[in-house]
């Protein structure tokens, strides 16, 4: 199974960067009603794109499914919607979990789930030649400078070094 579960963060961030189309890298995306409500209830970036997209399948998670996850990772400071996503990952035996939430990524690791962030999606698009090196650099610059994802924009230098290394045979 190649199921991919998605949190609100990548939807918001890639929409802010006008890169929502990069979700076409994945055949289908799954999220929960709680996360869907977060995205669509308020006028958050990505609301319109997500509503238009036929790619996102929304799942209702039962309280008992969430509670099972809560028990396994009770030491993490997570919201109800976060637990619903982890429960969905378990339910679908997800291959990937797309989120930009640091605490959620750490919790997912405890559950042996693989997580990727918006940054990973941008670089995957570059690898697949959907974005040129220049477009990738611009997207990463914007991700580091427009969003409040990272404490220091200097971390970008590390990414660019890795990208240039990856370019070399």
């Amino acid at each position, binding site marked *: 199974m190649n199921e991919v579960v998605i949190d609100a963060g990548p939807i918001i961030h890639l929409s802010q960067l006008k890169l929502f189309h990069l979700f076409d890298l994945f055949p289908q995306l799954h999220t929960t009603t709680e996360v869907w409500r977060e995205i669509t209830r308020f006028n958050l970036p990505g609301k319109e794109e997500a509503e238009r997209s036929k790619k996102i399948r929304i799942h209702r998670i039962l309280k008992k499914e969430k509670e099972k996850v809560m028990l396994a990772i009770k030491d993490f400071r997570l919201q109800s919607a976060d637990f619903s996503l982890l429960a969905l990952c378990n339910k679908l035996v997800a291959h990937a979990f797309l989120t930009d939430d640091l605490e959620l990524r*750490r919790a997912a690791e405890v559950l042996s789930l*693989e997580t990727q962030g918006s*940054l990973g999606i941008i670089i995957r698009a570059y690898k697949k030649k959907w974005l040129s090196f220049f477009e990738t650099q611009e997207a990463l610059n914007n991700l580091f400078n427009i969003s409040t994802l990272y*404490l220091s924009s200097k*971390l970008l230098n590390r990414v660019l070094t890795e990208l240039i290394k990856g370019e070399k045979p």
Partner: protein
Amino acid sequence: MELAIAKEIQAIKKYRKIEESDILAEALRLGLKQLWRQAILDEYAEGKLSKKKAIKLLGPELVKRLDEEKRFIIKDVRWGLSDE
């Protein structure tokens, strides 16, 4: 921009009942603290400052967060560039 700042100052004056000069002094103090914190984080992110020194200046929480961000960034880059 200037108008927005003036409006904010007026609002703070109204709600906190303090003088404009006190508001500006506090804004400068808070702004400088934020800039100082950012400068330290940037130095640490670039590897120009030791972890020990960064923890001493910023406390363990922020340094731990930045380390975690770095770890996930590397993970994302490797996944993005992989043939998976």
